[in-house]
């Protein structure tokens, strides 16, 4: 749902003057400082997971929330990014920075090409194609020996030496991941307030009308898809570097993209605050439920039921409800 982001005068307000810009900065700083100041490793690990979720959800939102196209297999970017990064580091001794960025670039390019082909199609066909792509890539990688096939790839622990050893490396990775999360939030915000974003929103409202108004719909959709691949690929590279191990079943876990979808819808699709708040709420919910043994089996059921309830009764998510109750919040929390 498109919320009114273009208020009179705001379009010309320089970005540093906009309150929301600083709200995002605050969130990033909080993420960065909290575990460091408290020197709390457990907090860091749970915030790392939150940052991954927020990254995945925010980028998914570019397709789902802005253009209204569902990317069911968005996790394929995460997994492929992880694989390319780990492969470059283990087989070709690339440094972390180079490997991660190369992974991001490669996955974005792949997404652009795939998107150009598949995004000529309308919503339902596109969604189906994305359901399949994750499974197809997983099947391919499982059979692809240079990438370890179904057993996966390992990184030796020496890999952490350039970062100052394993303990230090975990902190570095954490801050990098927070950086990726921050970039995701700023990317969402930047796009939403840009001409590109206006075009995407128009597509999401009424694709035919948008085309007739001059929006280059196939290109815009493909571009959004490609852009939405970059940061999750970086996140994947960092995440699996940290694990020093990657295998198909973890890398291409459809459950994760499903959770990202639930998070976007729960928080409020089309908004920037939505995925962040949604991730927090979802994590809380999951944390409570996972403590019980029976419920851990029901994780998917809970996600599904939650999603159904949101789609049926609260399609705007939490932020949609907030905007309805307090319209002024639209100006402050996008």
């Amino acid at each position, binding site marked *: 749902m498109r919320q009114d982001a*273009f208020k009179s005068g705001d379009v010309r307000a320089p970005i540093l003057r906009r309150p929301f810009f600083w709200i995002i900065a605050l969130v990033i700083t909080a993420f960065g400082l909290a575990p460091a100041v408290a020197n709390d490793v457990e907090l860091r690990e749970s915030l790392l997971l939150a940052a991954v979720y927020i990254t995945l959800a925010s980028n998914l939102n570019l397709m789902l929330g802005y253009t209204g196209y569902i990317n069911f297999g968005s996790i394929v970017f995460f997994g492929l990014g992880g694989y390319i990064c780990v492969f470059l580091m283990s087989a070709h001794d690339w440094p972390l920075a180079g490997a991660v960025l190369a992974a991001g670039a490669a996955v974005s390019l792949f997404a652009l090409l795939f998107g150009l082909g598949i995004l000529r199609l309308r919503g339902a066909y596109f969604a189906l194609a994305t359901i399949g792509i994750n499974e197809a890539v997983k099947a391919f990688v499982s059979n692809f020996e240079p990438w370890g096939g179904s057993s996966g790839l390992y990184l030796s622990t020496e890999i952490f030496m350039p970062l100052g050893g394993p303990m230090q490396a975990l902190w570095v990775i954490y801050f990098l991941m927070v950086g990726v999360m921050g970039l995701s939030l700023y990317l969402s915000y930047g796009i939403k307030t840009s*001409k590109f974003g*206006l075009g995407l929103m128009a597509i999401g409202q009424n694709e035919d009308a*948008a085309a*007739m*108004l*001059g929006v280059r719909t196939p290109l815009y959709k493909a571009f959004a898809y490609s852009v939405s691949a970059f940061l999750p690929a970086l996140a994947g590279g960092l995440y699996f570097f940290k694990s020093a191990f990657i295998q198909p079943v973890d890398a291409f876990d459809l459950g994760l993209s499903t959770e990202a979808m639930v998070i976007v819808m729960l928080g409020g699709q089309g908004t920037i605050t939505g995925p962040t708040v949604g991730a927090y709420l979802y994590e809380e919910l999951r944390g409570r439920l996972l403590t019980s043994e029976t419920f851990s089996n029901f994780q998917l059921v809970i996600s599904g039921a939650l999603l159904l309830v949101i789609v049926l009764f609260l399609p705007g998510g939490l932020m949609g409800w907030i905007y309805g109750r307090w319209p002024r919040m639209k100006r402050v929390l996008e």
Partner: protein
Amino acid sequence: MTALLEIEGLSKNFGGVRAVQWLSFAVNEREILGLIGPNGAGKTTLFNLINGVFVPDEGRVRFRGIDITGKAPYRVARHGLARTHQIVQPLTDMSVLENCMVGACFGRENLPLARAEVVAREVAVEVGLGDRLSTPAAQLTIVGKKRLELARALAARPMLLLLDEVLAGLNPTEIERMIGTIRSIRERGIAILIIEHVMQAIMGLSDRIVVLNSGQKLAEGAPAEVANDPSVIEAYLGDPALAAALHPGG
């Protein structure tokens, strides 16, 4: 007067039904060309063929000398051709201002966001929506939505405007007002191709009329000629007395 839009031998079949057959005519610069005909005559189909929604089976469409036959709608929009729809298509959750900005951003001039906002405001004021810039399109009345449709098309700064039954569903006062707006649009140098069923309005507005029947051109000429053309009267206007009554000037 040079021809702005040239339709040559345009034909389109839909599964055996000939929606448009060998249609040829031209719209000149600064002209208002009225398109009339019974329901199912192929008028909206013609619009769809011009702006790329359908690809013609035969024939050519030339705009400002450029062949735009079968080009995708967004390309046609970039060339400077804008269109409104019979069934309005607002971008429902976006505000009036945002709707117009989309037109301005992606139309002929391809404006950046800031400049587009300025144009969008002007256009919205021009059609009478200046007091409702922040209103979500979904909350407008039907009149408001029609005006928004027009504003959005104007925001694209077109050279030719295709209006599809923009007066349908309006009361006489609103019709008067809209006619005035259409005239002022022409004053600004924009040519208009208009489909309408409100006879009096279209006869009064148009410089020339093209009559369509079963996908073919039945007649073409000044409103007076067309109104007196026996085949037109038979096919469409029906009653000669009515036709006489509609003749501009009494």
